[in-house]
């Protein structure tokens, strides 16, 4: 064995010491804190205002915390606020949105994932043309298609129904979701697909047994994209549904923009927060998965 020697060292050795309050750190964290405050401030104002009574709001101290905390505006926003003719708050809109979002998300993701899988792994004739057309669809402005779709839905007898809106959402989710899934499946090792074919698995066998279990991250991304996108949609909701089936965003607009009487800022704030709560929750719950999925699928072309 070699001799163990310890030298007496002088001068710099080991890890280089770093100061906590270096100029670099102050600048970096200072900027981050400023930006964070800037973005958090509106939310703070909303939360604070929504818990004040109207007299307190009239005092005009936007940033001051509520003296008397009240949840009455929240209750009113949910179940009593007037949207046009009816006065049952956001609750109807919320349940409409749920009934629109869930089937749209499931249908669009189910179809788009199979599309992406077929485009990535089963090179059929005309696959490239099909893909190009689909991607091209992503660049056509929605406004161009609004009225033609109204006619199509009317002819099918679906205009004004939730089913019609679900179909519209499913179709409009197709280009971006297919691209997402295709890129993800392309990034999976091709040899896995080949091995499964040698093992005698068919189109659906490979999809369900091999591809699906490996695609949790990209499915998470797709769910988030679709839930937030469809939940936040206003245009399609207002165009393709009738007042009794308006989604939550349209109901919110009707509450906030109703012109008669006093503007109840606290109710408006509460209603806005309630509407935004669903996408917000989804982001908080799935933050890490979302980032991982985006990194896994969306970057590679």
């Amino acid at each position: 064995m070699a001799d163990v020697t310890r030298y007496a060292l002088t001068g710099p050795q080991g890890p280089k010491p770093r100061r906590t309050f270096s100029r670099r750190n102050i600048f970096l964290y200072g900027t981050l804190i400023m930006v964070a405050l800037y973005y958090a401030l509106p939310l703070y104002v909303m939360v604070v205002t929504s818990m004040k009574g109207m007299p307190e709001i009239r005092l005009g101290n936007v940033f001051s915390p509520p003296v008397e905390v009240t949840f009455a505006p929240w209750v009113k926003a949910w179940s009593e606020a007037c949207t046009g003719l009816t006065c049952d708050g956001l609750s109807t809109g919320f349940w409409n949105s749920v009934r629109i979002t869930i089937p749209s998300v499931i249908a669009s993701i189910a179809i788009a994932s199979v599309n992406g899988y077929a485009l990535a792994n089963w090179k059929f004739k005309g696959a490239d043309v099909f893909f190009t057309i689909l991607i091209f669809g992503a660049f056509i402005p929605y406004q161009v298609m609004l009225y033609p779709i109204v006619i199509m839905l009317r002819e099918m007898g679906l205009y004004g129904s939730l089913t019609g809106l679900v179909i519209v959402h499913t179709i409009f989710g197709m280009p971006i979701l297919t691209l997402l899934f295709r890129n993800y499946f392309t990034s999976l090792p091709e040899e896995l697909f080949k091995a499964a074919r040698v093992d005698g698995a068919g189109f659906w066998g490979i999809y369900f047994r091999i591809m699906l279990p490996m695609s949790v991250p990209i499915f998470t991304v797709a769910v988030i994209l679709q839930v937030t996108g469809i939940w936040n949609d206003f245009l399609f909701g207002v165009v393709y549904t009738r007042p009794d089936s308006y989604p939550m965003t349209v109901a919110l607009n009707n509450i906030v923009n109703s012109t008669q009487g006093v503007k109840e800022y606290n109710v408006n704030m509460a209603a806005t927060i309630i509407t935004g709560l669903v996408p917000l929750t989804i982001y908080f719950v799935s933050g890490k998965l979302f980032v991982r999925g985006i990194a896994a699928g969306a970057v590679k072309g």
Partner: protein
Amino acid sequence: MNNSVEIKNLDLEFGTVKVLQNLNLDIGAGEFLVLLGSSGCGKSTLLNCIAGLLDVSAGQIHIKGTNVTWAEPSERGIGMVFQSYALYPQMTVEGNLSFGLKNAGLAKTEIAARIKRAAEILQIEPLLKRKPAALSGGQRQRVAIGRALVRDVDVFLFDEPLSNLDAKLRADLRVEIKRLHQNLKNTMIYVTHDQIEAMTLADRIAIMRDGKIMQLGSPDEIYGRPINKYVAGFIGSPSMNFLEGELSDGLFEVGGVSIPMAGYEFASTATTSGGATLGIRPEHVVTGELVVNAPFQTDVTIDLIEPTGSDTLVDCEFAGGRFRVRMDGQAKVSVGDTIRLGIDPARASLFDRDTELRL
């Protein structure tokens, strides 16, 4: 009818790129055939065609006397092992082994029996309940081989199975694959770019370049009598020395040196003069006491020495070009020394300068 795999007039094109051109190959039952070539030569593509993972542009593939050109991969009676192992990550080892059998609709008892047998042969019984992520590279490749093994097929296809492993593991698994072949006596087609793997494993080697088979023969033939300059340079490490010169009346003249070619077996009697390239393997140059028996002898000065332990590689200048010689690892030489070399034309190779074919 003794051939296990027959490939007839096979063409494969990707758009305008011709990857395989009119390729013919017969592989005998129980034979270990290695497809060897540098990357992009079409060897993996050929293997994928045999497996049915790529549609061919023209030609036929027969396996065990059946035309399988249009058959699905699973119907061809093949098992395949991939470079990246391609184990299904969400399944246990057992799940990986049984996936193909379940797809084929085999009875549970039969599946269990086959997995047991394969696990015994490959010594992976303790790993059956583990997921691939919990296995080392060597274990993963063993499972991948097992997946081909349980299918109970006639033909095994290996697509660079050892390339992802470190050097020591590669050597170990190489021996295991050879032993497996000796025990099972299946036909095996093995793609690699590693000439050591090719030489040690193969019954026959097919050297491929640009979608064509350059030479098909036993490792001995390919090493000893390469059919052209490309094969000669590709096989052997360190690679063959080439001397560009003129051949006239049994004398090879290069850079003012004349080497008598007496004892060289010409492939044909037609050409005995003209521009030629003489190829001499570094290990076929003799040094020391053995020089006196060599038909041609010369003195050179050493430029560079590369000791590898078992051998010492010596670089020198000879006949106006670089020349490498393999000496014994015990040889005491240093840069600047003059040593005497002996060359035996019987072990050398001569190629036509223009066609690069063996003379």
